[in-house]
């Protein structure tokens, strides 16, 4: 599980859903949760919060232009690649901390990922959990 610490920058609520923006250093991450400031005490602007997401949900991109629907992005450098038979684990250094990604070995080979390479780490809004 990837864990990053930040603070809540904004909350947009509609009925029982909230779109929460979390500031981590100078970056902003969005997540959507079935909670509102009425149901969860931690949904307060300025509140310190931890974001959690699975390694298997991390998307890796090469190059700079990605016209895709993912808003949560951070640049990083691959510092370690651990190859299995089917899967592959990347440890990535970013300015907001270490992030681990697990992807198929095929995908990693296809992108020709290498240690020290600069890549973009992406994570879908619906895959980020919040924790106090």
């Amino acid at each position, binding site marked *: *599980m990837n864990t990053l610490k930040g603070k809540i920058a904004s909350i947009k609520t509609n009925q029982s859903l909230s779109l929460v923006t979390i500031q981590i250093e100078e970056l902003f991450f969005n997540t959507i949760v079935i909670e509102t400031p009425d149901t969860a005490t*931690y949904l307060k602007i300025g509140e310190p919060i931890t974001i*959690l997401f699975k390694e298997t949900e991390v998307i890796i991109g090469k190059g700079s232009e990605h016209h895709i629907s993912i808003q949560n992005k951070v640049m990083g450098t691959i510092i370690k690649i651990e*190859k*299995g038979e089917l*899967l592959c684990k990347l440890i990535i250094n970013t300015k907001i901390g270490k992030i681990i990604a697990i992807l198929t070995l095929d995908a990693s080979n296809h992108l020709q990922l290498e240690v020290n390479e600069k890549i973009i780490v992406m994570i879908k809004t619906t895959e980020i*959990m*919040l924790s106090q």
Partner: protein
Amino acid sequence: MIQIALQKKLSAATGEMLLDINMQIEQGKLVTLYGSSGAGKTSILRMIAGLLQADTGTITVHQKTWLNTSTGICLKPQQRKIGFVFQDYALFPNMTVKENLLFALEKNQDKQIVKELIEIIELEDLQNRKPNNLSGGQKQRVALARALVRKPEILMLDEPLSALDKKMRIKLQDYILKVHKKFNITTLLISHDISEVIKMSDTVFMIENGKIIQQGNPIEVFTTKKVSGKFQFTGEVIDIKKEDVIYIVTVLIGTNFVKIIAEENEIQTITIGDPVLVASKAFNPLLQKIN
């Protein structure tokens, strides 16, 4: 509402201990006392039952005073409407299951309750057997039925399931929940098993050195961090297998096995047998109607 305030000096293994607790329990709730041995849990149940004298304190059950040391009121155990199940079954060996239940009836009490309990706790096939011919789980079912014969206001269960294997424990937990709901009875359970506490109870009181150190909804009490994921369960780790660059963790949730892909940093502090929280976002699971 049941109000309990009790103080008593107890001699524990570590020396003298002052038990001092104050609990409010809503009628019809299932409440667990959780804590290490020697924390005072059994003493609390025994004082509520009237089997152990409190130094000072009050017990009020639905506005009726069972104990008030300052006015000298102290009902005898048989005047308190209580059903008790212990870890050992304490059944009469020379009586059949049904006779054991009939023997527990009060004078002039309608025998219908025995028939009803045999049905609810599914003892039909066992009712003419003697305790020696029953398994541990079956004996505990009989003990549970017997504790309910007098229609108690409080059912007290002192680690009733700790001698049973996991499968039997889950079955007994379901019987306890069934009678708890059916008779709308206030139930006090002592348990060491976190997954049992979470499954069974509305409220948990965490007891340490004779004091309540935490109380509330069990998931909130046991999980230090609240996670926003709405797809949340608690279970027990059955197996951890390293495969490829990941780990496959098998978790028993209720009677279902689930498998979870984990990364090294997640399993570092987890070993087989540990209770765990399994959480995912509500956005991930598929939902399909079963025909």
